[in-house]
C-alpha cells in the first residue's frame, strides 16, 4: 500500500558512494564530498585506526583497564565528528573514543575512564562532547533534552547522538526517538550497526528489514548507509544534520558496519562467530577503500601519505606517553564532587578515611 509518510522509510539498499574496491558509485540522491573534505577525512581515518591499535597495545601493557575498539568502524567515528559544526554537540558511547578524540578531546583526557583514575576525564562543555555513556541508550535521552533546551532558546545547535545496534532494543531508545519526533528537536540518531552486541547477533535484536525502518514509527525519516564508506557517511549525515539545523526535525541514520575485533580485550569472539565472517568484512575495510579511491584520483600523494602517517604516529606517541605517566589519584576526590557543596555527612566520612590513612601510613597496623 502507499502512505503519505512512506518517504520516511529507508532505501532498500544502504547508500553507497564508493564500493568496497574504492570505485565511485553513482547515486541519485547524494553527491561525493569535495576533495579537501575527503582528504581531511582520510587523515582522520588513519589517525583513528592508529588510536585503536595503540589503545589495544596499552591494554596489553596494562596501562588501560579495558578498551572497546572501533577497529573497522573508523569511518563512522570520523564522519560523526566531521558532520558537526563547531557549536554542535556529540553524545558518544564507550565505543566511540576515536570520535571523541577526533572532536578534539586530548587523548589523555579521553582515556581517563578506561585507565580507571576517574569516571570521565574531560570537560564536556569545553569540547561539546558529552561523557561517554556506558548504560546503553540512556545518553540518547540526554541528547534529546539537550537539543530541546537549545531549541527552546532558539540557538543554532544540532546534536548527533551515537548508539549501537544492540542499544536500539532498549526502552530508552524508543523514548528518545519519540520525544525527539514529538518535539521536533534537532537531533540526528546515528546507529552504528556493527552486527553484534557483545556476542549477540543483529538477528536477536530485531526482526525488521533494517533498524532504519524504526524511524517511520516515530514520524521521522530513516536512512541506511554503508558504514565503511566515508564519503557516503558524510553525505548522508550532512543531509540529516542540515535538515535538523533547518528546523526539519530529527532523523535516524543506520550505518552498516562491523565490529572487526572482539567486544573488548576481555571478550573472546571465537566463542560466537566464525573468523571467516570477520575476514569478509576486513575486505571491506574503510581505510583501504578510501586509500584506493584517493590514490586512483591522484589526490593522495606519497608525500601526503607519509605526512599523515607521521601525524598519526605523533598522536599515538602522545597517547602512549600520557598513559605511561602514572596517574595521580587523591582519595579525597571520592568526596569532593558528589554534591556541589560537600555535605556534613561526607565531611565526617572523609575525615574518618583521612584519619585511617594517617594511622595506617607506613603500612598496615
Amino acid at each position: 500500500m502507499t502512505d503519505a509518510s512512506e518517504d520516511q522509510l529507508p532505501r532498500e539498499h544502504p547508500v553507497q558512494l564508493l564500493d568496497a574496491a574504492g570505485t565511485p558509485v553513482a547515486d541519485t540522491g547524494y553527491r561525493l564530498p569535495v576533495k579537501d573534505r575527503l582528504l581531511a577525512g582520510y587523515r582522520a581515518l588513519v589517525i583513528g585506526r592508529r588510536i585503536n591499535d595503540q589503545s589495544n597495545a596499552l591494554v596489553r601493557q596494562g596501562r588501560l583497564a579495558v578498551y572497546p575498539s572501533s577497529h573497522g568502524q573508523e569511518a563512522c567515528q570520523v564522519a560523526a565528528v566531521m558532520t558537526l559544526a563547531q557549536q554542535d554537540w556529540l553524545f558518544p558511547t564507550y565505543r566511540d573514543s576515536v570520535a571523541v578524540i577526533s572532536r578534539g578531546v586530548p587523548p589523555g583526557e579521553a582515556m581517563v575512564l578506561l585507565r580507571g583514575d576517574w569516571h570521565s576525564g574531560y570537560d564536556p562543555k569545553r569540547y561539546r562532547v558529552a561523557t561517554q555513556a556506558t548504560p546503553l541508550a540512556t545518553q540518547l535521552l540526554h541528547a534529546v533534552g539537550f537539543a530541546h533546551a537549545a531549541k527552546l532558546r532558539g540557538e543554532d545547535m544540532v546534536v548527533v547522538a551515537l548508539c549501537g545496534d544492540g542499544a536500539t532494543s532498549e526502552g530508552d531508545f524508543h523514548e528518545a526517538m519519540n520525544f525527539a519526533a514529538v518535539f521536533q528537536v534537532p537531533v540526528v540518531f546515528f546507529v552504528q550497526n556493527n552486527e553484534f552486541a557483545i556476542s549477540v547477533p543483529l538477528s536477536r535484536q530485531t526482526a525488521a528489514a533494517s533498524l532504519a525502518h524504526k524511524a517511520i514509527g516515530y514520524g521521522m525519516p530513516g536512512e541506511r548507509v554503508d558504514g565503511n564508506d566515508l564519503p557516503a557517511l558524510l553525505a548522508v549525515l550532512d543531509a540529516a544534520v542540515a535538515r535538523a539545523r533547518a528546523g526539519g526535525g530529527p532523523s535516524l541514520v543506520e550505518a552498516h558496519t562491523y565490529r572487526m575485533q572482539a567486544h573488548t580485550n576481555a571478550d573472546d569472539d571465537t566463542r560466537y562467530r566464525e573468523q571467516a565472517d570477520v575476514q569478509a568484512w576486513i575486505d571491506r575495510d574503510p581505510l583501504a577503500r578510501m586509500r584506493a579511491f584517493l590514490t586512483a584520483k591522484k589526490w593522495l600523494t606519497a608525500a601526503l601519505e607519509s605526512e599523515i602517517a607521521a601525524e598519526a604516529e605523533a598522536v599515538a606517541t602522545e597517547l602512549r606517553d600520557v598513559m605511561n605517566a602514572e596517574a595521580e589519584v587523591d582519595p579525597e576526590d571520592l568526596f569532593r564532587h558528589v554534591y556541589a557543596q560537600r555535605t556534613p555527612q561526607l565531611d565526617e566520612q572523609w575525615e574518618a578515611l583521612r584519619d585511617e590513612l594517617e594511622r595506617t601510613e607506613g603500612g598496615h597496623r
Partner: protein
Amino acid sequence: MTLIQDAPQAARPAVETLTMAGAINRALADAMEADDTVVVFGEDVGALGGVFRVTDGLRARFGESRCYDTPLAESGIVGTAVGMAMNGMHPVVEMQFDAFAYPAFEQVVSHVAKMGNRTRGALRVPLVIRIPYGGGIGGVEHHCDSSEAYYAHTPGLTVVSPSTPQDAYSLLRAAIRSEDPVVFLEPKKLYWSKGEVDTSVTATIGTASVVRPGTDVTLIAYGTSVPTAIAAAEAAATEGRSVQVVDVRTLAPFDDATVTAAVNATGRAVVIAEAPGYASVASEIAARVAERSFSYLEAPVRRVTGFDVPYAPPKLEHFYLPDVDRILDAIDTLYPDGE
C-alpha cells in the same frame, strides 16, 4: 548542598493561607517568575494542571514552552530533564505517582545522581523530580508507595519531604535553586492540609527541625508521619508525658546535629515512617540514633513503620498505616517498668 539565597520579593502579599498543593504551586510559579531557565514538564501538567492540580495555571501564565506535557514515558521525562539541565535549564519534572517513577529509576540512579560526580563537577544537573508519594488517600495499587528509601540510599541525590505548606514552599524554592538534583517527595495525604505560608521565608536543605518541644521522649518523623507524631505527642501529654517531635525534612543528606541533640536531651526515641520498615530511611535514623546517642539512651530506639508488605488496598490501609495508638504503644515500651 546549597544554602539558599533570599527569595525575591513577591508582588502579592507575602503571607497567605494555602494548602500544601497550593504552596507548591505558588513555589513553582514564583520560581518560574524569578528564573526563566526553570521549565516544568511531565504527564498532564499542562492544560490539566496535574492530576493533583499542583501545576494549575502555570501553562496559562508562562506559556507552552515553560510548562508542557510530554509523551507518556517516565524514563524519557527524567532522561530529557538530565539533558536539559546539562544545557543550562532548570527542569522541574513531575512523576504522576510514586510507583510510576520506577521506569525512570535507571536515569535517576545512573545519571541524575552521578553526572556531577562523574564530571568532577564540570557538568552538574540541577533538576528537581517532584513525586507525590505515600498513602492514606484510599488509592489503589501503585498509587500509594512510600518510595523514599530507593532515593535516599542513592549517593548524589538530595531527598526532601515537607510536612507543612510553609516548608513545602520554602524547601521547593531551595530545591529549585540548588546546584544539585533534588528528589522532592510530596506527601499526597497532606496536599489539602492548610497552613500559613510566608513566601519571604527561606529554608535550608539539609536541616531538620524540632517542631514540638518535649523532655521525656523524642519522636522522629517526616512527611505524613509528622502530623501523626504531633497528634501522638499531644495525646501522650494528656497521659503526663512530655514528647518532643523532630521533623527530619531532608531525608538525605541527614541532619545529625539536630537529631542527635534532640535525642540526647530525652534519652528515648521513636522513629515514625509510613514506608515498609526493612532497610528503610527509618532503619537508618534508628541505627544512627542508637549509635550516636548510645550512652544517652534509656531504652532501645523503637520504629513505628509500615509493615514489610506491599501497600494495603484502600479498605485495609487503616490497618497498615502508623497511627497515634501505635505510636503511643511504642512510647509505652520505652518505659518497661512504667514511669
